[in-house]
Structures are given as C-alpha cells and as structure tokens.
C-alpha cells in the first residue's frame, strides 16, 4: 500500500544565499492540501527554483545560506530537476531507478518487484538495460521522474522539468503529471515557464516577483484575475500568451529566397556524423538568402543544432559542401579571424561558450581596436553597462544576463550571418521581448538570421521561413 500524499504548510518562508545581499525569496506563506498541485511562476531571478529546493529540504544542507520562517512538509520528497543529464547518475535505466531505492535501504526482492512497475508506469518498459544516455531528452526526464517516484514519496517537487525538452517530450511529460494527479499519488510542487500546459494542472498558484517577494497566492483563476497585469509587467508568462502551432509560417524550402541572385549560405548534399557510421545529417541541401530569417525546427536529436554549426564552419561536413558569403568560401576552412567576421554563433547554454575571466575581457576577446570601439555602446544597449558589469566573472551573471552577454559576444563583430541555438530556452517574458527586439533590429540592418528553435512563438514573431529538420534531412512542407 503506497503511503498517502503529504501536505505542506509554509509560513513566512525565506532564504538568503550565503554572501547574498538580499534574500532569494521571502515571506512566502501557503498551505497545500494532500494530492494537490502548486504551480510556482516568476521571472528570472525570482527565487522560484530556490523555493522548490527549500521545500525539498535541500537548501542549507547542500547550499550554504540562511533559511527563515517555518516549513512543514508531511512526508518524504522526490525531486526532478531541469537538466536530464546531470540528474541521471547511473549508466543503465533499471540501475537508475534502483539508485534511490538502494540509498534508502530497500531489500533486493522489493526492488525487483518495484522497478518493472515504475518503468511500466513511465512508459519505459523494455528499456531496462538501455543506457540512459541513449534515451531521448523526453524519455530521460520521464526516467528521472520515475526514479524520484520509485520510493513512493508523498510529495514531488519539479524544478522546470520540461525546460530542455522539445514539444513532444514536454507533452509526454505533462501527460504523466496529469495521470499522477488524477490518481492522487503525490502532492506536487511544479516550477514552470510553460504555463499553457502547466496552468490547467494547478490547484494553487504562487507568483513570485523579480525581487523574490510573492505577488500573489491562490487558486489559478483568482490569481490571474487579481494580479494578471502585474505578473505580465514583471515578465511572467501567462496562459493567454499561447501560440497556436498550426499558424506558424510553413513555406517549403523549395521556394526561392527573397533575393534569388544572392544566397549567402548554400548547403549542398551535406552529410555529417559525430561518430563513424552514425550520420546525423543525411545528404542535406539548403539555400539561405541574404538578410533572410530562417528557423530550423524539428525534434531534438534531429540535426538542427548540428546543421547550425555546419553553417558557420564549426564542423566540417563528411560529404558535400557548405558555402558561406557571396564569394562561396567554405567556412570550415577559413581562418578563425576571417570566419568571425562572416559568421556568428550563439550557443544554447551561454556558459558553455565563455572563455574569459571578466565580462569586459569576454566581449573584447580577439577584437581589433576598430571593432573594440563598438563595445561600450553595444553593452549599454543590451543592459550590461561595462562600468557595472565589466569586472565581474561571466559565470556570476544571472541567467538572463549571461544570455545577453553571449549575444553581445556574437554581435560585436556584426557578422553577416548569425546562427542561434535555442535562444529562448527558459527565458521569461522580458528576456524574450528583449531578444526578439534585438534580432529584428539586426535583421532590418541586413544580418542573415538562422535560428534553431522549438519556440514557435519566436518563429511567428520573427516572421521566419521555416525549414523542418527531422532525422538529419529537410522535410518538405
């Protein structure tokens, strides 16, 4: 008999990171009934993740700082984090599920019985011996969820669990959450940006503001009615911001680019694989015109990110050719200094491209004196004035600031072609609006934009031509 779901009561709860000047969040009070679902929303920096970790009992233990107020959590807690890769700690699927049970001292027979059950519930039956690295992102998150649920916790905390998933993976994950809630198997605290799907699951909504103070707490409709405007102003996504996918512009690639005489990137019969004999891109051909805006869409693992890197010569094709700019240069053979002037690339995770000790150094890396003159103005426009941010380490920036820095780094040379890999992942409304504006400005000034993205809202807002990349090929509309 599974233990019943637990209740949660929070009174004036707050947490300040050690060395922090202000609390990450503070003065949160609420009561969550057994089997109910609390949705926590807020802009970047509002402390919603910290709140979730506090409920899970993980702050002040692993994370140095001070917890104030009171927290009553009625039972053990299971946690699911945002990044699939860093929460799966065993090689194989069944061992991953066993990990939590082993840690809690379950007898082997009980484990042998429980694990197949858990896998079946999660839709992962038959995958026991599969390496978890070989699962899709969506499957990995369902595995993480299964691992958290295996010991039958009464409470489940999920911190942006679908942030890194493609729409299919996210949909499957939410379906799982829906069935958990309908079976009343756990009390759920969910931190999410994908409000269209998360909102209907919630019995209670907590909206945190930019400074960590609660904007409102209550049943979803009440909160929306009372504080909807204020939430939107703070940059929180609301359910009515949805995009209907069917409306996305889906002109087939076969259509000629706007200025047929001057394609700026031509891909011809390109094949590429990271491992020998495992191609990720198959005989792909594509033509992008000058100053066009193209969106590469498609499932994760289908090749759109790889294609983006091939376009600017960060990878070299195994077969076929890529020609960049009007002189038809092969970008993978250009010297870095020449390449940087033609192409720019914004990585999905800003931190994965940081190379310097300070923000000022990061932006200025490799620039000629003529180019360096542009830096102060650009940084001001991106909300990262050098006198405030210049001497900070790039890794100490908030998520939104880091994203803007990675943009600055790509934009400072004013490249003819700019490729961006999932630039809106995990962004709140304000971050998104800022990004969209910058991209439109650049495009109007003549930069060719190629965006690999799941975000159909962005595709619509940029009025971009869509190329769907699936299984390493372009799928004609």
């Amino acid at each position: 008999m599974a233990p019943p779901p637990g209740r949660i009561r929070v009174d004036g709860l707050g947490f300040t990171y050690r060395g922090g000047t202000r609390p990450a969040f503070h003065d949160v009070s609420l009561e969550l009934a057994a089997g109910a679902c609390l949705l926590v929303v807020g802009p970047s920096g509002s402390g919603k993740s910290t709140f979730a970790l506090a409920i899970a009992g993980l702050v002040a233990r692993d994370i140095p700082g001070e917890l104030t107020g009171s927290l009553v959590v009625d039972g053990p807690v299971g946690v699911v984090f945002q990044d699939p890769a860093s929460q799966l700690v065993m090689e194989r699927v069944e061992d991953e599920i066993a990990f939590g049970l082993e840690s809690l001292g379950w007898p082997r027979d009980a484990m042998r019985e429980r694990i197949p059950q858990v896998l079946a519930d999660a839709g992962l039956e038959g995958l026991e011996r599969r390496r978890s690295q070989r699962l899709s992102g969506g499957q990995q998150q369902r595995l993480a969820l299964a691992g958290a649920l295996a010991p039958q916790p009464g409470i489940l905390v999920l911190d942006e669990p679908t942030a890194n998933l493609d729409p299919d993976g996210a949909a499957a994950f939410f379906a799982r959450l829906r069935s958990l809630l309908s079976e009343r198997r756990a009390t759920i605290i969910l931190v999410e940006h994908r409000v269209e799907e998360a909102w209907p699951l919630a019995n209670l909504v907590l909206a945190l503001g930019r400074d960590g103070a609660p904007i409102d707490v209550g049943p979803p409709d009440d909160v929306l009615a009372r504080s909807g405007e204020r939430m939107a102003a703070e940059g929180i996504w609301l359910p009515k911001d949805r995009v209907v996918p069917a409306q996305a512009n889906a002109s087939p690639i076969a259509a000629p680019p706007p200025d047929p005489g001057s394609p700026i990137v031509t891909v011809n019969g390109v094949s590429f694989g990271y491992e020998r004999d495992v191609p990720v891109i198959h005989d792909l051909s594509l033509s992008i015109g000058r100053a066009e805006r193209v969106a590469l869409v498609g499932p994760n693992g289908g090749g759109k990110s790889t294609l983006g890197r091939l376009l600017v010569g960060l990878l070299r094709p195994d077969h076929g050719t890529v020609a960049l700019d009007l002189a038809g240069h092969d970008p993978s053979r250009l010297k870095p200094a020449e390449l940087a002037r033609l192409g720019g690339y914004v990585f999905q995770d800003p931190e994965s491209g940081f190379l310097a000790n300070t923000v000022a150094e990061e932006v200025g890396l490799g620039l000629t004196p003529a180019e360096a003159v542009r830096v102060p103005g650009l940084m001001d426009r991106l909300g990262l004035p050098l006198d405030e941010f210049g001497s900070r380490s790039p890794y100490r920036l908030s998520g939104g600031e880091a994203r803007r820095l990675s943009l600055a780094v790509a934009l400072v040379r004013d490249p003819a072609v700019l490729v961006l890999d999932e630039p809106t992942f995990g962004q709140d409304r304000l971050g998104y609006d800022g990004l969209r504006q910058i991209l439109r400005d650049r495009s109007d000034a003549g930069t060719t934009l190629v965006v690999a993205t799941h975000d159909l809202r962005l595709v619509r807002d940029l009025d971009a031509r869509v190329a769907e990349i699936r299984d390493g090929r372009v799928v004609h509309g």
Partner: protein
Amino acid sequence: MASTIDERAPKSLPDTRWRTRDIVVAAVIGVAFGVVFWAWNLAYAAADPIVAFAPWLKDLTYGVWLMPAVLAPLIIRKPGAAIFTEMVAAGLSALLGSVWGPDVLLSGFMQGAAAELVFAFTLYRSYGAITLVLAAVASAIAAFVHDWVVYYPTTDQTIQILRAVAMVISASLIAAGGSILLERSLRRTGVLDGFPD
C-alpha cells in the same frame, strides 16, 4: 578584556567527513583532467617517436599529469583527495583503454599517495604555496621512480638525472604553480563557493 578560553585552545581539526558534493566534485575534477589528457594524447600521439629522441622535452610538460593530485586537495581540503582524484583520472584511462593500460593505475596511485603524504604531514591544514610545491615535487619523484622501474630500468644515468630535473621543475611550475592560478581563477567564477578557503 581577557581572551576567552576558546581563543587559546588549539584550532579544532578540519571536518574530515566528505560530503556528497566533495566526492562528486573531486571525481569530476579527475574526470575532466582525464578527458583533457585523452584528447591531448590523441592530438599529439604522432610526436611520440620524435620525442623519443629528447624525452626531457616531454618531461617538461609532465607537471600537467600531476595537477589532479595537487589541485583537488587544494579545492576539496579533505584527507584522501589526492589519491582519490588521481585514481579516478587513472581509472578513466583504464576504462577507455588508453595505451598505458593498467600501469596508469599504478602510477596514478603512487603519484597520489606521494602528494597525500605531504598534505597528511601538515595534518591537512596547510595549503599554501610551499606545501603545494612539496606535494607536487613528491608526486614527481614518485612518478620518476615508477617510470624508472617500469620503462627506464636500463637507461643511462645522465639521462635519468636530466629527466628527474625536468620533472621536478615541471611539477613545481605547472602542477603547483598552475594549480594555484587555476584555483584562483575558479574562485573568481563563484564555482567554488561552499568549499573551504
């Protein structure tokens, strides 16, 4: 005002229990170095026969291989960090099937143990430049002895001495000096918050 008894009592021993975070971060440092060594070996494997003629050139870079044994204790500050991290880096090589096979485990252990002895000698309380250089040099000596027994038992004495000198210099500059600079850079990024200073 009279000083309290606490101020005159000896400092309490550093907390020796490894938190999960200590274990995983130490392991991760070992693995990160393992990945860099692997990629570097692949890139420079072609140079091996040439370098065979002037091995002390290669030995001047030996310090890089000794870094985990110095950097990990400097960051984690718990007993056993040098040995554990070196064994993790060596274990990675063994599992990936590097050219030196199980020997990497032996040399890794010796290098880690030598550094560990130095830190143990200071009761795990000193992580200043002198301690680090001593640990690096101890590690280099252990590596030298290992290489002598396994790879160079019949080599000319003068060459052996040249090797030893090159390794000690490399250890001091790269393993110790490099670790100090690396730790400083890492601290600025905020990623070491929560580890003892």
